[in-house]
């Protein structure tokens, strides 16, 4: 009896260990993404794009917060190149009230964000890429109608000072766009751990 009762006080949301994912080179079948920027928008037809950058971020993580302006600029900068930049929220909205669809919509409206902000409601997209934390980037590139992960890791290497940062993700995009292989296809990222809801 005592032992059963003891456990009621214990509520863990995670185990300790996680590993940096390694998705590089993996082929991806296009999937649909639910965008919160407006009612009933989704990105499901990828045929118009040559590259898709998935930047996994969220509302509450202080490291992710540093990147919204940079993401929006990257979205605008790459629009003419058939390259889509998408912000994806991998967080469990049951765990964090701050990560609900309503709060995401509020953020988009308040901060005039036009890049698509995707709620990964069942965490399936994030789980399939084994996203370890926010912020974390995955760049998908189309090669002969097939999509592959061609860059994975940090957005850049300076959270507080964008002007001093080496833009890892943008460099990889630029190199692929001009027909080269990325010099740095994978970098170390870090931030707020993503906890996957157990089903």
């Amino acid at each position, binding site marked *: 009896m005592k032992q059963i*009762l003891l*456990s009621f*006080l214990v509520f863990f949301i995670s185990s300790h260990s996680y590993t940096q994912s390694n998705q590089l080179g993996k082929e991806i079948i296009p999937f649909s993404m639910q965008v919160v920027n407006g009612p009933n928008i989704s990105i499901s037809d990828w045929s118009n794009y040559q590259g898709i950058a998935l930047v996994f971020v969220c509302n509450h993580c202080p490291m992710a917060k540093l990147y919204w302006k940079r993401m929006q600029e990257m979205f605008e900068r790459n629009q003419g190149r058939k390259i889509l930049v998408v912000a994806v929220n991998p967080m469990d909205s049951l765990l964090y009230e701050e990560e609900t669809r309503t709060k995401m919509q509020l953020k988009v409206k308040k901060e005039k964000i036009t890049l698509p902000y995707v709620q990964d409601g069942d965490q399936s997209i994030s789980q399939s890429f084994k996203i370890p934390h926010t912020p974390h980037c995955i760049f998908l590139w189309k090669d002969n109608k097939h999509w592959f992960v061609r860059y994975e890791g940090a957005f850049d290497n300076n959270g507080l000072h964008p002007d001093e940062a080496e833009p890892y993700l943008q460099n990889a995009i630029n190199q692929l766009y001009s027909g080269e292989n990325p010099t740095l296809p994978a970098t170390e990222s870090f931030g707020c751990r993503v906890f996957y809801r157990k089903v």
Partner: protein
Amino acid sequence: MKKTTPSLVILLLTFLLTRSVSFAQYNEVWIPPIQDASSYNLNIYDTIKQLVPTGNQTVTIGINGDFWGPTLVLHQGQNVQMNVTNYLNDSTTVHWHGMHLPAVMDGGPHQVIPPGSTWSPYWTVNNRAGFYWYHPHLHSMTAEQILKGMGGFLIVQDSEESALNLPRTYGSDDFPLVLTSRKFSSSNQIVLTDAYGDYMLVNGTRNPKLTIPKQLVRLRILNVENERGFDLGFSDNRNFTIIANDGGLLNAPMTVNRVKLMVGERIEILVDLSNETIGSTLELMAYNANQAFGFPGGEPNTTGAFGSLLNNTNFNVLHLVIGNPTQTPVVGIPSVLSNQTYWTESQATVNRTIQVTGGQPGIPFTLNNSSFALNTINYHVQLDDVEKWTLVNNQIFGHSFHIHDVQFKITSRNGSAANVGSHEQGWKDVVYLPRNENVTFVCKFNDYSDALHPFMYHCHFGQHEDGGMMGQFVVDQTNSLSELAVEKLILKPNPVEDKLFLIGLDDPEQVYYIRIFDQLGRTMYMLPKPNLTNGIDVSKLPSGNYLLELTDQQTKSIHKLRFIKK
């Protein structure tokens, strides 16, 4: 030619100057803000700090800040209320290290604070004046959360210490120092898996210097390394005076020129700088070279899981610069500090022996061959018993042993009282257990019993503790409290705007724990043994439906009541 020479010289000079500046660049050590109140709000955040001089910021955990929290003053005999809100992405706990308090307020691995919720423990301070601290204690996550900077100082004041003529002007002649080191990854992040850091941080400041007045000063020093011990001394080999350790003032000051400070231990020392020249410098050093085998940090490796640039070397901990004296310097050291009577081995009615086990390659260290399990109570201690604990270490490495709830007296090392160090004479809550040695302490488990909630005992090395080198005990007594008459309990007013009252309680002591959940099951508030006379403040909750779970003190059964927040 003539004209270019001066500019060349200037260029060269500038180059040399900038180089020398960047080489000897010290940062003034950060002294955490001090707060003196009866109620404290601690807000724990994921954040970042520039810990590596160039490049990316480092992910840290801050408590009301970006690394390490505020210094909280507690007064003996007074109540203190803590409101700990977890804004982290992960769960955590906050343990009040060294405090004697009810187990349910202790902040051990069972008092998990889920993200987004507030834990509100309170207690009557009955510790002696001294230097204590708070830190996370979530099982298997303790090392990571401490390494990210989560913790803070507690300073307890009492009438005995206040009556003595000692330096105690915080940040002026009385300085708190937390010593720790970190190793950084290529992207400037704290390496969480290794035993040792490469770069010292004092109060989270890298390359630290402290401008210190030309007079008698007090340093309160805490070791929050992952594993490393420090054999502390000054670069001129001067004597200094130990006045207190873990549990407060010693009976008499001890003069030494070296003191070993192991993980979790505290020491308060007086250093006489009155004869120094203003502007002169002095180093607080760790004389860690050539320590006995098994001394944590004595390993020869400079890289790898047990490697560090600081291993087996003498290194600079803190650069001291002598500054102007304060207006009223304290002069002279009292010859008598306290008059404590300590427990003796013959007073103990219960003897326990704890062996260090495991630790072979690939096997974590354990205590008595059993790894920590949240639902296993290792010992039942009877309230008011005096017990003698003997720790035996026949393994390959030293450890820092810590026990919650009590302050103990170290009575012998390797069977002899004469082996107990001069720096560990007072009340202690951490004891160093070197390789191939044993140590005995005596303590009394008084005041707080709780058949449900355990206290911990464990190695304070982050990875050892997380790896299962921990056990737990409950302090039992027969309880005469009545059971709740549940059927008549109601919440009023309902719907509620600010204060929620529990109607129908005969005795508020019947309530062991209250937790409040929102409609989706997120924990909002965790209130151990709440004081219900003024109601529960729910004014900050968003409108909606809530569930209040009340745990009965006597039966520990849970009762559920619903309410609506307007």
